[in-house]
């Protein structure tokens, strides 16, 4: 039995089904109490599940995607991430970015340009809720943030899959036959399906974790593509 088959079996467990139902209820409640929501979509596995769940209840929801620029996100990967949103039914996809992504040395731009500019614009446009696919199991920092209910902008945040484990995420993807980013097929067999993540690549910000070491070996084709 391969990993896909194992995780598809996990989707049949009561535990998983309960988490999916809980996520649906969280979304329903959030949609009832807010007027203009949007979904933060990275193209990764978590936001793919979350977007699929939200679209079932609000098919016209705005999907907001942040483009980290050609130096940190190879164009092929970026294109594929956006295609995933459309494939699972998104109709209203907005792609935003910053002109500060001028090299791999440029770090911390999301904090400055998303939090400093884009988030304010969204707030001014009347968006009052954002669905974010963060999970407690990802890190202690996220667990703490979810426990405290900390939002990072003025807009309310909703975390429908906050209690999901990595097994739940993959079980949902495989059982619903959702598309997922091909980067996972490169990373998961090496780092594990539990640790494979879709984030920026060759990013100095994650050098201390050794991420660039893995990118250098697995993504050699894209190491110098844009330089």
């Amino acid at each position: 039995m391969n990993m896909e088959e194992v995780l598809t079996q996990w989707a049949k467990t009561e535990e998983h089904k309960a988490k999916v139902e809980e996520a649906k209820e969280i979304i329903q409640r959030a949609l009832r109490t807010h007027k203009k929501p949007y979904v933060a979509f990275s193209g990764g596995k978590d936001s793919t599940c979350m977007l699929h769940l939200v679209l079932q209840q609000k098919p016209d929801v705005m999907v907001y995607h942040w483009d980290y620029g050609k130096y940190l996100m190879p164009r092929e990967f970026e294109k594929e991430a956006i295609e995933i949103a459309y494939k699972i039914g998104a109709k209203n996809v907005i792609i935003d970015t910053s002109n500060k992504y001028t090299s791999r040395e440029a770090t911390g731009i999301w904090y400055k340009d998303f939090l400093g500019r884009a988030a304010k614009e969204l707030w001014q446009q009347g968006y009052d809720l954002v669905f974010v696919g963060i999970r407690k199991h990802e890190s202690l920092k996220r667990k703490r943030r979810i426990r405290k209910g900390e939002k990072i902008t003025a807009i309310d945040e909703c975390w429908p899959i906050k209690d999901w484990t990595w097994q739940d995420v993959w079980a949902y993807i495989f059982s619903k036959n959702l598309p997922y980013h091909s980067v996972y097929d490169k990373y998961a067999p090496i780092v594990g399906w539990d640790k494979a993540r879709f984030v920026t690549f060759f990013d100095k910000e994650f050098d201390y974790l050794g991420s660039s070491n893995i990118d250098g070996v697995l993504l050699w084709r894209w190491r110098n593509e844009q330089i």
Partner: protein
Amino acid sequence: MNGILDEIKYFTAIAEKAPPLEWGSFRPFKITFKMRSPVCVTTPWINFDSLLGHLIMMDTFGQDYFVLPRKLNITPYLDQANARRLVPLKKIGDIYHCSVSIFYPNSIRVTQMYKRFEERWSENLAQKKIRIGAGHFRAYAMKTVYIPAKEVIYYANGDIDLTKRLIEEYMLGLGNDIRVGWGALKDVLFEEIEEDWSLVANGVAMRPIPIEMCAEYDDAAYLAYKGPYWDPKNTTLCVPPGARCKLKDEYGGSANTVGQNGRTQS
């Protein structure tokens, strides 16, 4: 040493005193590294010319190699005689006749390495938590990529005797982080071979080859094709190792160039 000029003087003096590297005849050869421990990598292959360049630097500077200022290029300060301490491999254009590393078996693995971790902190592991402290010297739990290869093979065309001397005298291990035990060598075998598989073997690129040198190719990517391989300035559109290609006639044409003996310098 007081300043940069003193450093230049100190290192150029050592380089100028180093005996010249005497090249013998060039011929195709194969090197097999028998590995005692897995090879730690940050790229999918290790370039042989850069490995030899590293060994020549150790031959030139001895222990002082390890205190060379990393950001100071002393080459412009060296006289011509010392500039002749070049890699003893055949060269066409900017590329050396040497394959990239071929790992047997080639399976990529990842582990976590605790950088700057000291044994006196090991009690923290029992608590499943490492006190990483803060600041510049904090410990990192870094992901490290390794290949548990039993053998690493290179094909080259050059001076096998000089290459053998450099490897036997100076090479401590292969790949990254050899100081912590990765890439330990068990044995090294040197064999002269008839066919030159240093650039192309049976129609397959053995190293990054700029597409300008190829008449036909079935894949291309932006890769470093000459040392230093970490420098983005040394990248161009290349046929990657493993892709099918055919060199242009002026670069050797046919897939296998048989027995290119004799000294060839560029």
